[in-house]
């Protein structure tokens, strides 16, 4: 009975750990789940997409909940989806966003969608960890 309970707890712990790692480092979840090719493609593609967004003068939106600007909060949540690159870029002083740059909105789209795609990658890693895929 105790062994059966331990069996149920162990995979769940791993699933959560894999989900957190998959969020923090794009593709890390798949690499840990022995899907190295997919993981490396996610790592390179999503990181490059995020960096391209910053290169295009996109903004990393601050995580504030200002009712006057609800879309800023939603964009910040999407930006956070990319994980560690978000914090590294902030630490290095990137992502201030130059509103007058002609590529500003394009940059925002790249940064936001990179974060959202990584959220999908995390969900996929979760499904793989659960044995659904």
């Amino acid at each position, binding site marked *: 009975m105790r062994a059966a309970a331990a069996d149920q707890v162990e995979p769940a712990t791993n699933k959560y750990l894999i989900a957190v790692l998959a969020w923090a480092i794009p593709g890390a979840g798949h690499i840990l789940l022995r899907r190295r090719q997919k993981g490396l493609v996610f790592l390179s*593609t999503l990181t490059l997409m995020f960096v391209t967004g910053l290169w295009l003068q996109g903004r990393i939106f601050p995580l504030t909940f200002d009712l006057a600007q609800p879309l800023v909060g939603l964009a910040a949540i999407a930006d956070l989806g990319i994980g560690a690159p978000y914090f590294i870029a902030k630490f290095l002083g990137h992502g201030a966003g130059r509103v007058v740059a002609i590529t500003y909105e394009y940059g925002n789209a790249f940064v936001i969608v990179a974060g959202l795609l990584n959220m999908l990658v995390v969900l996929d890693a979760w499904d793989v960890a659960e044995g659904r895929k």
Partner: protein
Amino acid sequence: MTTHLGLMALFSVFVSIVFAMLMRDEPREQLAFGARLFAGFIGAGVAIGWLLYPLPL
């Protein structure tokens, strides 16, 4: 490179790669699905662009 079409194509490449890897497992299927997605993005973008061309009326 920073033209609207160029950036749309680059954006489409990134999104197509990720979706192809997520939704297909075999490399050949991933390539075919990614290429179809990319063509769909570009085709839809150009078609919608032409539809919006006469606006504002």
